[in-house]
């Protein structure tokens, strides 16, 4: 049933990337009868090929093309060529994600108005409100099978979560749940219920967790309107003299270059690659990069304010038995400047195996003190902090002046400095996260700095006025009508919640718009 389209077929809609944004948009359009070609830089590994071993899986799935970093974030020192933690495979980072699915809050679409002006923060209100997204949140939650919503039960609490919940209760938190997760508690939509196997970050071998690889893509392919072309790395988006996009240039697995013609193009390469592709598509009409009349392409990069708190106890926790993320504490997810910062954050359970723990718990550290902490592995509980970070114009993606990748495309440099608000929030969260474990008599708590960013946002942001951002309220670029952005880079601000539910909701919404525009002959 999988469709095959000719390179010269200019009636197809081309999507760059097959992750949360691209994979969802592809299925939605295919369901409406639109012919879609998805060009995906990575190979296709079905679930049977996924590996439940941390580094082996990481090497199979991750985006490891060369990148450089700058700025005062710890990453420049600890992981200088790995600013982000994302995937290069069919299914994108949804093959790797933990499944935590939370809606943004009302105020989080209007933070410029809500927070006022904040030194160094390039705040802007979204051109849409929560009300615009609500119907699509419902659809996306149903699609992803989010627990605790629409009559789907929560997953049963695991050890790691029971520790966090007990401590949270001790310190007075009230909004404590087993998490709204895109992981089936019971069989649903052709996928089994969870067996709490512990390897959510290592692919979808058990198939209980939603991914575009196990849901959107096969469903789209079954319509006969979708071709997913793996190992097709898009290098440039091309346009004609009148400014319309005509197709994309891509390199195949052997490095041979082809042009796929298109009636319209959407870019969903995650927030480093999407702006990189626009910048690399500069032309005489678009001297600063395609669709960059605002100068905002690649700017305002956000990665959420994150960190991890580990508690080492006197007795076993065995946190690895259970889903990688499960429980959630939501009490701090509110805007209460009395805490010393704007915006809010969540605590979510997290476990790593010994291999990732060794690499990430305190990057670069060594010696007996480090080894002693590792000896406490069995007695460890963990929670991740995820909160809103401030968009700053100076944070972002630029093309490297000299270094090129395997296809001759300039590598991206990712620059990041924390905003003082980010630092204040992280410190507050470390302290209150530790208090949760201390209330249960933790022998020690450990504060782990941010990992290479798993949430990447803001580099092609949505704005009401063309001079403030790259795309309009539909994710359509202000400058070019048949060019769209469909991933987290369109987010005007980042909110506290993990982004993927919102990325998929916006993709479903965007599909309705694109289909209408096509019908009306606008695309």
């Amino acid at each position, binding site marked *: 049933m999988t469709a095959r389209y000719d390179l010269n077929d200019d009636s197809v809609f081309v999507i760059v990337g097959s992750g949360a944004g691209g994979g969802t948009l592809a299925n939605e359009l295919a369901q409406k009868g639109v012919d879609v070609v998805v060009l995906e830089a990575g190979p296709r590994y079905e679930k049977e090929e996924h590996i*439940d*071993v*941390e*580094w082996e899986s990481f090497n199979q799935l991750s985006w490891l093309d060369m990148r450089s970093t700058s700025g005062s974030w*710890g990453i*420049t*020192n*600890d992981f200088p060529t790995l600013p982000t933690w994302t995937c290069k495979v069919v299914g994108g980072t949804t093959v790797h994600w933990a499944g935590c699915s939370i809606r943004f809050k009302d105020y989080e679409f209007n933070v410029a108005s809500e927070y006022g002006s904040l030194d160094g923060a390039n705040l802007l209100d979204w051109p849409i409100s929560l009300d615009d997204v609500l119907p699509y949140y419902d659809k996306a939650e149903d699609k992803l099978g989010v627990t605790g919503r629409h009559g789907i039960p929560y997953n*049963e*609490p*695991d*050890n790691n979560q*029971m*520790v966090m919940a*007990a401590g949270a209760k001790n310190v007075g938190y009230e909004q404590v749940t087993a998490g709204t997760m895109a992981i089936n508690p019971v069989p649903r939509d052709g996928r089994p219920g*969870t*067996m*709490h*196997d*512990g*390897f959510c970050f290592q692919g979808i*071998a*058990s198939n209980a967790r939603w991914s575009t690889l196990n849901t959107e893509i096969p469903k789209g392919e079954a319509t006969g309107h979708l071709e997913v072309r793996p190992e097709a790395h898009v290098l440039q988006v091309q346009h004609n003299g009148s400014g319309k996009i005509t197709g994309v240039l891509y390199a195949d697995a052997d490095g041979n270059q082809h042009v796929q013609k298109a009636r319209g193009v959407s870019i969903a390469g995650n927030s480093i690659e999407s702006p990189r592709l626009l910048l690399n598509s500069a032309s005489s009409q678009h001297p600063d990069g395609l669709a960059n009349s605002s100068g905002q392409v690649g700017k305002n990069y956000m990665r959420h304010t994150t960190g991890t708190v580990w508690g080492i106890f006197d*007795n*076993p*926790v*065995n946190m*690895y*038995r*259970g889903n990688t993320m499960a429980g959630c504490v939501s009490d701090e997810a509110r805007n209460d400047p009395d805490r010393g910062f704007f915006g809010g954050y969540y605590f979510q359970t997290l476990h790593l*195996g*010994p*291999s990732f*723990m*060794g*690499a990430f718990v*305190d*990057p*670069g*550290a*060594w*010696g*007996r*003190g*480090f*080894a*002693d902490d*590792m*000896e406490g*592995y*069995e*007695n460890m509980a963990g929670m991740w902090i995820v909160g809103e970070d401030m968009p700053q114009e100076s944070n972002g993606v630029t093309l490297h002046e000299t270094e090129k990748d395997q296809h001759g495309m300039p590598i991206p440099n990712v620059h990041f400095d924390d905003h003082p608000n980010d630092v204040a929030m992280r410190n507050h969260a470390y302290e209150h996260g530790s208090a949760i474990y201390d209330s*249960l008599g933790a022998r020690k708590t450990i*504060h782990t*700095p941010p990992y290479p960013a798993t949430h990447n946002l803001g580099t092609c942001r949505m704005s009401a006025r063309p001079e403030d951002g790259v795309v309009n309220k539909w994710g359509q670029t202000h400058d070019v009508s048949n060019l769209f952005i469909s991933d987290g880079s369109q987010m005007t601000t980042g909110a506290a919640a993990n982004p993927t539910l919102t990325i998929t909701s916006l993709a479903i919404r965007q599909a309705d718009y694109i289909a209408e525009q096509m019908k009306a002959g606008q695309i």
Partner: protein
Amino acid sequence: MTETGSESRMRRGTNSPTDAAVRDAAAQRTQSMYQSPDDEWAKSLGTLSAQTGCTLVGVTRMMYPHDGLGDEYYAKVVEGLDAQAGDDSDLAQLLEDGVGDLQSDGWSDKDEDARLDALVEIESTPFFQTVRNEVVTGLYGNPDVWEYFGYEGPSIAKGGYKDRGFNDIDWL
């Protein structure tokens, strides 16, 4: 959090390296088959010299010391370095030179504290960092050490942890 600068990333333990228990464990290990260039194991390395190989066993242990783990697990890390050095002569040179520098000062014959000080001195060198990175992935990533840390690893073939203790905590 990591700061760029000269501050050491070595973290001392609560039990100092001169604790009696630690000394005992070390004394026991002098029987190990991975400590002398005359041992079969050291001579069996494909690329690295026997002296370099067995010195690296001591260096890797000192970087991430787990008294309950035998030298064979650290030797496994060194075997990994040896295999890579076989395909990468720059790496081979880096390791031979790094060990040569340490041993030129009689590293193996020093006491525990002095050996640690010597490592702190070189911790920002490419030699040290290359070896350290390899220990982090090669030691903690070795499935044979997981049981020691209380980790049961991949579970799908066994039906996940659903019926094997995912919610068995009993002390809360």
